[in-house]
């Protein structure tokens, strides 16, 4: 084993800080670094700009950071677990499952306390993950990536059809949910999201003990069993982690596509195949990417906003297609 190198992580940590700073400055009216500094540390109560930074931009940047990190890590775990480089929470229907539960809770039960919706999203994600996993487990060596992705697409279509049914019935709910269906990190006060943030932090920390075992699992299931990994337990724990991460992300920001797919690939390219290196990296890259995507989403056609899910799809689809082409030329 080569010694753990810290500098790439440090570089990205710095990058994340810069992105965070940009996100606090960006908006229809850009504020300078000094204003941001004052807003955070020595605020003067009357200043409207500083108030804006503290109450709107800061929660937003934090949400984007948490969601991006959790999607990146969740995608990474899924890719290791299914040994499929196209696996990700968005494509495999896990996001759609979470969304469906949230939509049904908001339309059927009306006003609920926020945490019910959040944990509902996690429950929906869990159901979708169970179905996809059930399909992936059967005859897993034959069809390669296609079967899993198609199962995910079918599951997504099914959940979306049900969500749409509910929204067609309850048309008042539609307007409030629609922007969020497209993915959005806006208007999430910290008072509501902190339990989810805690969950994400806990899940990310929970990855720690698994990293070594994932390294072994990546070499193949038989190898992992031979090396003494309790494989069923590892799979169970991994799915639990994926579900909490992806579910919390959906509960906070709705349907954000392709972050979970792209980020692990970038991380592996930068940090190599060792999970202990690239998985933390995936979290950092995911956070940075989503913060930057959010900045782009709200400045590109200001004063209006592009839903952040559209931004990530615009970035992600070309990447996805490139990935397919590369896999194809390897004969996979």
């Amino acid at each position, binding site marked *: 084993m080569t010694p753990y190198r810290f500098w790439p992580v440090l570089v990205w940590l710095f990058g994340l800080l810069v992105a965070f700073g940009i996100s606090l400055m960006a908006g229809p009216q850009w504020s300078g670094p000094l204003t941001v500094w004052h807003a955070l540390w020595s605020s003067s109560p009357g200043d409207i700009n500083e108030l804006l930074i503290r109450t709107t931009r800061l929660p937003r940047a934090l949400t984007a950071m948490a969601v991006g990190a959790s999607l990146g890590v969740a995608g990474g775990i899924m890719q290791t677990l299914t040994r499929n480089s196209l696996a990700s929470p968005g494509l495999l229907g896990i996001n759609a499952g979470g969304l469906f539960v949230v939509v049904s809770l908001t339309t059927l039960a009306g006003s609920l306390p926020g945490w019910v919706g959040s944990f509902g999203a996690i429950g929906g994600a869990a159901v979708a993950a169970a179905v996809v996993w059930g399909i992936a487990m059967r005859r897993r060596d034959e069809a390669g990536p296609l079967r899993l992705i198609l199962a995910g697409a079918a599951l997504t279509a099914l959940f979306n059809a049900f969500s749409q049914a509910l929204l067609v019935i309850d048309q008042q709910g539609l307007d409030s949910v629609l922007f969020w269906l*497209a993915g959005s990190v806006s208007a999430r006060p910290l008072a509501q999201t902190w339990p989810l943030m805690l969950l994400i932090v806990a899940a990310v920390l929970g990855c720690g003990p698994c990293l070594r075992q994932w390294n072994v699992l990546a070499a193949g299931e038989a190898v992992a069993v031979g090396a003494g990994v309790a494989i069923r337990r590892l799979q169970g724990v991994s799915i639990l982690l994926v579900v909490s991460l992806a579910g919390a992300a959906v509960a906070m920001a709705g349907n954000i596509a392709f972050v979970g797919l792209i980020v692990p690939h970038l991380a592996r390219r930068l940090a190599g195949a060792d999970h202990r290196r690239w998985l933390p990296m995936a979290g950092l890259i995911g956070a940075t990417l989503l913060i930057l995507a959010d900045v782009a989403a709200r400045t590109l056609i200001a004063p209006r906003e592009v839903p952040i899910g559209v931004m990530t799809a615009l970035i992600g689809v070309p990447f996805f*297609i490139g990935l397919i082409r590369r896999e194809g030329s390897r004969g996979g």
Partner: protein
Amino acid sequence: MGEWRAIRLIGWSRAIVWRSWWWVILAWMVAALVLMICLGWGSVPLSPGKLTAALIAPTSDLGLIVWQLRLPRTLLGALVGGALALSGWLLQQIMRNALASPDTLGVTSGASAAAVSYFAFLAADFGTGGVPLAAASGAIVAVAIVYLMAWQQGATPVRLILTGIGLSVLMAAITTFVLASSPLSTTLSAYVWLTGSVYGGNWSDVSRMALCCFLGGIAIVPLLRFALLAPLDDALATGIGVRVQLTRALLTLLAAGLAGIAVAWGGAMAFVGLVAPHLARRLIRDPGAAQPVMAVLVGAIMVMMADLAGRTLFSPLDLPAGIFVAAVGAPFFLTLLIRQAS
């Protein structure tokens, strides 16, 4: 009378497999029966006797319900289902993959994105008459993009489908964006339509859709011979004098156009184009012209029944048919995936 019989005219010959055509006739009868049930059932239920009376007298009260409300809507559903099924059948033949369909190749989502954008940006100036054109061109553009993106010294079916799924996510994102940024009234009508609904179909819709389908169907006839051969080796088709690449491109365009037309009038009805050809292939094993006919009938029956369920099960609510198609189609598709060997 044996299993099959050859019919020969001067330069033309066909093998007629009796069993297949019996199935087709049976399917016609089922379709007619479903049509009758759709006409008779609703918020005003009609007994068979009353339905006959209403059909004979189109100007009576009941006659108006049947002739002006239920019949056009049901026929529109049948046409939408048939067009989607035919499009799916063609794509599955050409791609040589049972999982190809207008949905998985991104065709329906391309058409939806184009149609919703038309609703939002152009309908105010040009009226809603251009929606079919927009949807069909969206579908064709989508299929062209998928082909180009997946092309790498030829396009393998797996790559085409994966690319299609990626593109359809992008198109769905664009659709949601357009919906979220347009006024609520547009959003609502577009959203119902997007789920797949033949709500409010009238005779002018039916006649225009029927015309489009008829033209599409006619265009397929000369190419049908290749469509039937397409799952076999290309060399075979070349051997009997078919220009393979050209015909394949034409058929793909036609399939995309058909799906686009269906989306224009029926919205993004998922899974019909995938499930109907499958059922048809399971019922009719011989690779003759009976198969596409059967697929069309199955598709029509599916959508008619889904629409019936949508308007009666939760009445007085009128739910989009697409919900029910998806509720049946998605589990079917998942079991298919689990079972399929490769």
